[in-house]
């Protein structure tokens, strides 16, 4: 091989995000747990254990992503090296890290205690574990896996199928972990059998390995047709490559068995009485350094200067909105060529829902409408009217959202840059007028459909604005977080921090954070969706069960998520001509069924079925309102699947639009981040939303019913029906909106 070819061969690494994420997660969990154990039992978890475990992780990474993997289909000898790394190197290294306890301690405590805990004490599982780790079982599994996967039918199957290749590697690693478990006995495993049995255990394994290796080395025909047909990339022909593979299996393989065998033999022969456990020592310097780095990283997170970032973010979005409006009115009226066709409908929507999943309501935090509103207030002065009482609920935004979803599909808003620009201008005008005339953040709380969307979806976000210490609030007399003070305004959405719960109605404006004189309010992590099953009344909102308007909001957004996605799939689009209806008439009928008839009929039916199982017989409407909120995560899952689909399929479309806007020659043939795995990601979002909804319904039922399973069942059935519908939608041919593809 010449130097160019050698360089190309060494550059043949593979990027496997799933594997990298999994290995990283394992490393992080171990390191977290090791750090805690290191400070408490440093002699049990010295730094070499961390080194061994990470070495095992790196070995797996190297075996599966390095050029070894790229050439495994060309050379049996290279493939053999890959397998030896997975069976002889990675497993002992991982087990020398005594991974069991560090990984358990590295997991969130609640997950370990509540989710894994009951399984860990489950007798059948413990019996299965005892059976699998019994030396005879572990040895047989290891040997059978080794021999079976080297038989030509199975080996060829793995060579020809990526999926089976993974299964093969899984078997090698899994059985090798069981095999080496008996050799290493990772702490805190008890030694229950005489240690000497490990010597024949290893020698017998070496014997079967040697027999297989000798067969490879001396067999006079090529065993695997793939290697006979593969182009030769080295001087070795297929037969000598097979012999080389045998030698690799034989020599390094035997060494891997014989070294621990010798070590244990020496240990056994020079055995003394087991010394008492050494006294606890101080944590090693590396452990202290590690702990220091982690604590620094953790403390840096909540101190992100969000209050300072807010204005620049608002200005940036205002600028973008101005650009979109200008291009919408003056640019080409083709959605994929216009900033008004590309930025709001594909990128803004996709990025804001992703922000909701990973952070929180970041759009409202950087909302440009508020910037204009604040300026208008300075102009109009401060003599404002109170927002009318009959509109102090969510019915108006519910109607606006339904109208928007109808107009979006009926008039193909996404495909009309001019209409999009007009909508944005109208939005700015409405926000300015309403907040200029009325007190507080009336527009955000009682009108803005975008705000309501974010309030509902952020119920499943992992962060919220919350007080740090309840005791500080108990002694507070100024209540600046809601009343404001001379320099800072308080919460204009009337959320009183000590009684606030969750993200409903919170715009992340951070006014309360700035106003609190005790620095007692901050953006903090929370368990996603946990507010859904909180039965306590919350400030300015009350209890979920007493708010049918909020239930309607959740329902219109949940059913709207499915209707909005269904609107772009071929089977639904072909219904209009089949029924002889115009597009607008069909859309009207479709929206009426999916946003009015179906939500009302199904939720009233579910509430009626739930009601007999309630502890206190509330009205059907109260029962409905209490449970309907649980559907929010499922709707969010569908919005995510839908918007992320558009974001990735139209990922590069802004590039030629900006080229055009800046006077460059646009290249409309742009790439896309669409790949077959995107469908899996969509399903993953839908799965997560569905499971969270089921859990929320069950928790609500637990609060309200002596028979929670029966009470939650109608809601679980409704969620399952929506989930099936969502899965069906995801698999259908879809319109590539926001791209030049029809």
């Amino acid at each position, binding site marked *: 091989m010449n130097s160019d070819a050698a360089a*190309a061969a060494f550059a043949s*690494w593979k990027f496997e995000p799933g594997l990298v994420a999994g290995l990283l997660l394992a490393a992080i969990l171990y390191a977290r747990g090791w750090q805690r154990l290191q400070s408490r039992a440093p002699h049990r978890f010295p730094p070499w254990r961390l080194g061994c475990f990470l070495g095992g992780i790196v070995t797996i990474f190297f075996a599966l992503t390095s050029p070894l993997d*790229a050439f495994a289909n060309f050379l049996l000898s290279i493939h053999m090296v890959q397998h030896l790394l997975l069976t002889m190197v990675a497993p002992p290294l991982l087990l020398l890290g005594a991974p069991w306890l560090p990984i358990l301690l590295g997991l969130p405590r609640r997950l370990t205690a509540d989710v894994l805990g*009951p399984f860990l004490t489950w007798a059948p599982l413990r019996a299965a574990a005892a059976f699998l780790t019994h030396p005879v079982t572990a040895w047989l599994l290891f040997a059978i896996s080794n021999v079976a996967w080297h038989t030509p039918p199975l080996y060829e199957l793995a060579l020809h199928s990526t999926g089976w290749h993974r299964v093969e590697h899984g078997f090698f690693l*899994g059985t090798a972990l069981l095999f080496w*478990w008996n050799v290493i006995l990772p702490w805190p495993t008890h030694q229950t059998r005489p240690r000497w049995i490990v010597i024949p255990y290893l020698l017998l394994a070496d014997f079967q390995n040697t027999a297989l290796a000798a067969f490879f080395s001396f067999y006079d025909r090529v065993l695997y047709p*793939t290697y006979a047909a593969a182009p030769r990339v080295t001087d070795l022909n297929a037969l000598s490559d097979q012999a080389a593979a045998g030698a690799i299996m034989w020599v390094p393989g035997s060494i891997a068995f014989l070294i621990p065998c010798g070590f244990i033999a020496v240990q056994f022969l020079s055995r003394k009485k087991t010394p008492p456990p050494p006294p606890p020592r101080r944590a090693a310097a590396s452990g202290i350094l590690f702990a220091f780095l982690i604590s620094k990283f953790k403390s840096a997170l909540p101190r992100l200067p969000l209050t300072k970032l807010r204005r620049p973010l608002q200005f940036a979005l205002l600028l973008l909105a101005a650009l979109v409006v200008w291009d919408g009115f003056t640019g080409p009226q083709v959605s994929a060529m216009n900033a008004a066709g590309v930025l709001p409908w594909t990128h803004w929507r996709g990025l804001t829902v992703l922000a909701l999943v990973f952070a929180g309501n970041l759009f409202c935090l950087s909302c440009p409408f508020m910037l204009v509103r604040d300026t208008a207030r300075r102009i109009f002065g401060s003599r404002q009217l109170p927002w009318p009482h009959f509109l102090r609920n969510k019915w108006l935004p519910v109607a606006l959202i339904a109208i928007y979803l109808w107009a979006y599909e009926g008039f193909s808003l996404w495909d009309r840059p001019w209409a999009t620009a007009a909508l944005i201008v109208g939005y700015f005008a409405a926000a300015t007028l309403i907040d200029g005339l009325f007190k507080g953040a009336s527009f955000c709380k009682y009108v803005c459909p975008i705000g309501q969307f974010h309030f509902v979806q952020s119920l499943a976000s992992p962060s919220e604005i919350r007080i740090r210490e309840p005791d500080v609030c108990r002694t507070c007399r100024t209540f600046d977080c809601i009343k404001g003070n001379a320099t800072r305004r308080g919460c204009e959405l009337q959320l009183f921090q000590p009684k606030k719960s969750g993200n409903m109605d919170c715009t992340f404006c951070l006014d309360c954070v700035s106003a609190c004189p005790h620095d007692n309010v901050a953006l903090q992590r929370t368990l996603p969706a946990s507010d859904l099953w909180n039965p306590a009344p919350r400030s300015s909102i009350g209890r979920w069960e007493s708010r049918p308007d909020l239930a309607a909001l959740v329902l219109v957004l949940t059913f709207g998520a499915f209707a909005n996605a269904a609107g772009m799939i071929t089977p639904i689009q072909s219904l209009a001509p089949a029924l002889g209806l115009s597009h607008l008439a069909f859309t009207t009928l479709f929206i009426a069924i999916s946003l009015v008839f179906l939500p009302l009929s199904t939720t009233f039916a579910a509430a009626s079925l739930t009601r007999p199982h309630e502890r206190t017989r509330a009205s059907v409407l109260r029962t409905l309102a209490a449970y309907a909120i649980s559907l929010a995560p499922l709707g969010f899952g569908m919005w995510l699947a839908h918007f992320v689909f558009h974001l990735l399929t139209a990922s590069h479309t802004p590039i030629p639009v900006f080229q055009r806007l800046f006077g460059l020659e646009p290249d409309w043939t742009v790439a896309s981040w669409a790949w077959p795995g995107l469908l899996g990601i969509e399903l993953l979002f839908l799965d997560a939303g569905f*499971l969270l909804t089921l859990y929320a319904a069950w928790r609500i039922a637990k609060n309200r019913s002596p028979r929670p399973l029966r009470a939650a069942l109608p809601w679980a059935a409704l969620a399952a029906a929506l*989930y099936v519908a969502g899965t069906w939608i*995801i698999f259908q041919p879809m319109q590539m909106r926001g791209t030049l593809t029809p």
Partner: protein
Amino acid sequence: MNFALPIDGERRLPACLAGLRAQRSPIAFPAFLLSLFLVPQIAFADGGAVLAQEVVGACRVTLFGSPAPLRAGPADLSVMLQDAATGAPILDRSVTIQIQAAANPGSEAWVPPCCSMKTTTDAASATHAGAQNKLLYAANVLLSSSGPHEVTIRFGDGGESLHTQVAIQPPAPPLAAYWAFLAAPPLLIAGFALNQRLRRRPVPSRKRE
């Protein structure tokens, strides 16, 4: 259960860990690592099975296809060019792969909705950048139907090419590639139900050490 370790180290460690020791489950860790391998594979690796190998002029040309056997739908075709005399890989050609249905097309491919925009083109350009194994030239193509297909590989400026025929199998059912995502909710629900059942068990009184 409280898994926090006491600060006075080894002296109290055994008592604190008693619960964990009693609960240790050696298969949990192997199961965790194994799960990393069983994440469903949606992308196709380049390489795959050898579909054709021929000497054209001074070049040995090998065509690979993945998945093996090739099925209607997204596929990876890759080409290796070698000096016919020495076997040295040739890395500096521009390679195009043309694939066309030879006779009446069979069953139509199912394409994930997100990828329907990548319509079948007559000729795809195969590059090292598209390949994991950088000795290969690879291209992702969409095989629109099953049945016999004519493949033409053009490489180099001299108009050298290799013609061959490959059989494309009917498409795999759409759910085959995504089964794990659909199986996850029922499995997790079953796991949750079991978890709740186990949590309601009476806790056996633990013997004092």
